[in-house]
């Protein structure tokens, strides 16, 4: 499997994450979908680093590590927000969060 294969897998994984974010109604599952998309981008970064190595310092792998740390921070704050909102609204369904509309 060459670079193309990895990039195609990455694109498909990104699409799955995008579909999950757009289509699911559970707030926690939307966060999981965001994690899937971040992982897809990470995969393409590492693949490019492995196949097109032009610099002295492995920029792709370092970017992947930094993205992982940022994703961890994002997941922490996002889940705290979701737990707080579920505690006040008693439901994880994003359709029910429509106070601003009314």
């Amino acid at each position, binding site marked *: 499997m060459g670079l193309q294969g990895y990039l195609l897998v990455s694109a498909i994984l990104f699409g799955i994450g995008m579909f999950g974010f*757009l289509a699911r109604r559970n707030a926690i599952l939307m966060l999981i979908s965001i994690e899937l998309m971040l992982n897809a981008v990470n995969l393409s970064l590492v693949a490019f680093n492995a196949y097109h190595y032009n610099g002295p310092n492995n920029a792709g792998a370092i970017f992947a590590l930094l993205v992982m740390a940022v994703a961890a921070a994002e*997941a922490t*704050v996002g889940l705290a927000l979701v737990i707080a909102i579920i505690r006040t609204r008693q439901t994880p369904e994003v359709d029910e969060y429509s106070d601003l509309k009314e």
Partner: protein
Amino acid sequence: MIGGGLLVVTLRNIIHSAIAMMVCFGSLAGMYALLGAPIVAAAQVLIYLGAISVLILFAIMLTQAGDANLPSPFHRQAVLGALAALVVVGLIGWAVVQTDWGNASVVIALGIASLAKALFTDYALPFEILSLLLLAAIIGAIYLARRPEDDEKANG
């Protein structure tokens, strides 16, 4: 891996989705190892399988009071969402297939020593900023997830 990803977004029970997500992340770690980046694979296992999956499972079990099964887990815009995702995948896939990647056939293994040197010299500033971001995230998460009554108890 793609099967695991598909299961994540289609399973009805959200705990099953989270376990499918762990399968997906684990196979991604395997792909990193295949790409000659064992340090990224190790970080994937530690951060995603170890930390984020446990965090998400905890969040699900904290919030899922009783049986919360729905008639349909999908939003009414699911068809439009699937269409948009298919368009994006099609565009990226077309671009990937059309591009001439040259003689990109050799996987270059990553030297851990050179990676560490780069991380602490050329990328030292992003590294330090990242530590600040993580600290801010920890404080923010504690503040957000705290119950109001804990606060009153703490104040006497």
